[in-house]
């Protein structure tokens, strides 16, 4: 029984607020060149809100049983992507069905969170987890990461790994396991650089380290984003008045760089407000995690918090030039149906936990 008096208005308002700002920003980013994207995003937002409501209404504890089948479905769809997926910009990421295309790697993020939550919930280790207790979670993340890297999609792989790391670090680990994890991470980094990354990905990271090495290519994009953000100054240049955005100097305005659009037109004040909204949502999710009635719900909320945090942090970090340009979307501000749906369903799961935390 859900107590409507305890409906989580705070969460709902925060979600709607970000979604509204996202639509506003998308309008500014697209109205001069691709106005049709706005209405498409609007319909995805509508579908996403239905997803949000459905996830909120569903008792998340039923998902514990469904976690592994969903995970398997996710992996299967990733395999399918590699076989029959649609390629765009040199990357095979989409499955097409009935004129619509979906990006299974987005949904995989939620499936991974559910699977990890179920595993950690079902196999408690009171005295702390040793490395061997982590072998299955390792496998859980390694399989989709390997598949996503084959597309290739560096950003999504990174997010999957970071969600996994965040969740694992929340559990009680034995010192040996922590040491081993650090060791694995230390060993994986150079191997990733030499074996997993494609040339253009290495190039992007090199450009970040030495911006002068590629003045016309990705370095140019990153610089235009910085200019857009900086030009916003304190109060912004005004809605629809950002020249970097409106005269198209800013690249990837609706996918990777919507934050630059926002920062240019709304300034430091607007940027701080948006950061505040995201942080609020993340902290709220963390709070729900700590108030969840059992570990499955806690880890679920922590996972969604991690998803939101890493997306927002990496995206804004790359727009403001503190991180290299890797394709990571900004939740609810970036254009894209799969991303919107994933984020809103994830937030719906938070709501589901929230609604049931005081249940007797």
């Amino acid at each position: 029984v859900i107590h409507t008096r305890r409906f989580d208005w705070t969460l709902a308002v925060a979600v709607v607020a970000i979604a509204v700002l996202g639509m506003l920003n998308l309008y500014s980013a697209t109205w001069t060149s691709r106005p049709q994207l706005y209405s498409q995003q609007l319909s995805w937002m509508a579908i996403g809100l239905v997803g949000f409501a459905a996830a909120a209404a569903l008792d998340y504890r039923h998902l514990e049983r469904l976690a592994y089948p969903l995970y398997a479905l996710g992996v299967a769809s990733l395999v399918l992507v590699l076989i029959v997926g649609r390629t765009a910009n040199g990357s095979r990421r989409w499955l097409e069905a009935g004129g619509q295309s979906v990006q299974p790697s987005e949904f995989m993020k939620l499936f991974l969170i559910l699977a990890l939550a179920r595993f950690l919930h079902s196999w408690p280790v009171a005295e702390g987890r040793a490395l061997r207790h982590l072998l299955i979670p390792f496998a859980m993340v390694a399989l989709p990461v390997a598949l996503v890297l084959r597309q290739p999609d560096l950003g999504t792989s990174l997010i999957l790994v970071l969600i996994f790391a965040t969740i694992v670090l929340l559990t009680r680990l034995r010192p040996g396991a922590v040491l081993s994890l650090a060791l694995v991470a230390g060993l994986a980094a150079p191997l990733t650089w030499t074996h997993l990354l494609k040339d253009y990905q290495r190039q992007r990271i090199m450009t970040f380290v030495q911006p002068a090495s590629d003045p016309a290519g990705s370095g140019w994009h990153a610089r235009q984003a910085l200019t857009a953000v900086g030009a916003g100054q304190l109060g912004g240049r005004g809605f629809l008045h950002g020249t970097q955005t409106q005269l198209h100097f800013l690249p990837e305005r609706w996918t990777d760089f919507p934050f630059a659009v926002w920062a240019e037109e709304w300034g430091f004040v607007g940027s701080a407000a948006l950061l505040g909204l995201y942080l609020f949502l993340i902290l709220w999710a963390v709070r729900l995690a700590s108030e969840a009635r059992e570990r499955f719900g806690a880890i679920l909320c922590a996972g969604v918090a991690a998803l939101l945090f890493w997306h927002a942090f990496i995206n804004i970090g790359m727009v403001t030039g503190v991180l290299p340009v890797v394709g990571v979307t900004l939740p609810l501000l970036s254009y894209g149906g799969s991303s919107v749906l994933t984020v809103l369903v994830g937030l719906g799961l938070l709501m589901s936990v929230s609604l049931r935390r005081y249940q007797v």
Partner: protein
Amino acid sequence: VVGASRGETPEIRRRFRVMAFLASAGFALLLGRLWQLQILQGTQHLARAHDNLLTEIPISSVRGQILDARGRLVADNRPSYDVYVTPRFFSDETLERLGRILALPHEQLEQMRRRIDGTEGLARYRPKRLLRDIDRDQLARIETARLELAGVRLEWTPQRVYPMKSVGAHLVGYLNEIGPGELQARRDEGYAPGDLIGRAGVEWLFEASLRGHDGRERIVTDARGVRRATEELRELGLTHLLAGGREEARAGHNVTLTIDFDLQRAAERAIGRYRTGAAVAIETDTGRILAMASRPGFDPNLFTGHVSPEQQAQLEQDPRRPLIDRTVREDYFPGSIFKALTALAALRDHLIDVDEKLECKGRHELGGHTFRCAHAHGWVNLEQALARSCNVYFYQLAERVGMDRLADISREFGLGAPTGLGLNGEVGGFVTTKDWYHQNWKGGFRLGFTLNAAIGQGNTKMTVLQAALLYATIANGGRLFVPQIVRRVQAADGRVLQEFTPQLRRTVGVAPEHMAWITRALAGVVEDPRGTAYGVKAADGIRVAGKTGTAQVRPPKRGAEDASHAWFVALAPAEAPRISVAVLIEHGGQGSKVAAPVAIDIVNAYFRSPEVRMAAAPEAP
């Protein structure tokens, strides 16, 4: 279920606090970065954003006009329409349509297609010039089909035109594109690649006045380099960025020549009877040039902007060298027109009495050499010797005058140095001296050289301009002017910026009565029944004084009949000359038969002009 994990859950909860802290710290980091970018460096970033979108484009200035002495256009500008396409927005289909509309040949269309297809990347957004200077008909057809021609744009630039065509080509000059070296050297003057620059004549000499000053305009372009309309900028609140961003182009100054193109045309028609030659008409009292013609000429319209390589080669390889200005760039042996100077040198130092007669037997012996004359003139005085061009008389005079005095009087009258006109690579001619012979001839100087020099057959040379100026100086009583070709410079609004008044170079050191005597004596050349140009008559009873010259030179090719350069210098009216006309026909033969009629034609044209008639009227009987 809950109980089973009791051991771990509190710890997880503790870690949630760490997680919340770390997330806050991460966002604090981002906020700090935003502070740095937007607050601390905001101004620089805003400036960079403005740099992105502001572009300065030049506004081309219109070059000044060149007008003749009566205000007729000699060099003007007309709009030339060029067709530009932006490859990014231009399709093969549009190219086909353009080709159909303009009836372009298939090969040209293919060539265009290759050029457009060869453009890649950002360059595809930059307009490319496909055709230049299309005609009115083509312009109209493109305008009509404008809406079906996506990516096609018409741009106009001022194109120099010379309405007089080849008339006065050398003195007016022409323009062509500035070269890379010049561009480097003249960068401070504001020249840009592709600019046209005066190459010859007044176009070259008055480049600084004619050129004008390009303006500039600040415009807003988007990331594709596409110009955005002002209304759009108002929408974006950017109009303030454009304030003060426009500097109007300043048109070049107009230059009015001293040349009367009626006279110029007459002069060119007159020398046009011969293969190569030159004629100069100077106003004796001012040094103003009224006509200066060099044959063959060329059409400066062919050059300006875009001479085809074939035309260029044809002009450069023409054995008659049409680009050479024969009035100033070439010097010639003067032949007998030099005799006036020999006479003046003798008169100045009282070495001869005008009534003293010397005998001509048709030959003169000196040092085992025979110096010849055209006829045996018998006993002749100076006036007769000038009229009949008796060499023997002048040989004897030369023995009295000597080389030093000949050199001195030559220099006095401006020979051996450029006149100061400064046009078309003017040369100064050459004045021989004893020293020169000592240095350049085996056996050094001999008196014989003086004899030849005295009749203009030595090594002294002068330009046609110098010849006209020399006789003008004699006729005006000794005022050697710097010849002028430009009367005034005016701003485009008509304001006079510079008025060129006659500029005296010096007053020659010869008594005016001696020069007046020579001028009178020169009337005998046409009036003395035995004068070399007897029977040559100007129209309307205008008396002409003059001097013939037939300068013997090596024939240009074996077997040529008479290789001599034909000279005639006319002064008219003889009693008070207002005009000095020098004519030279290269390898024309006898000065009297060939050059004199040309000079008379020019004199007649001069006196036909209404202004001259008007000015002459009070003196008419």
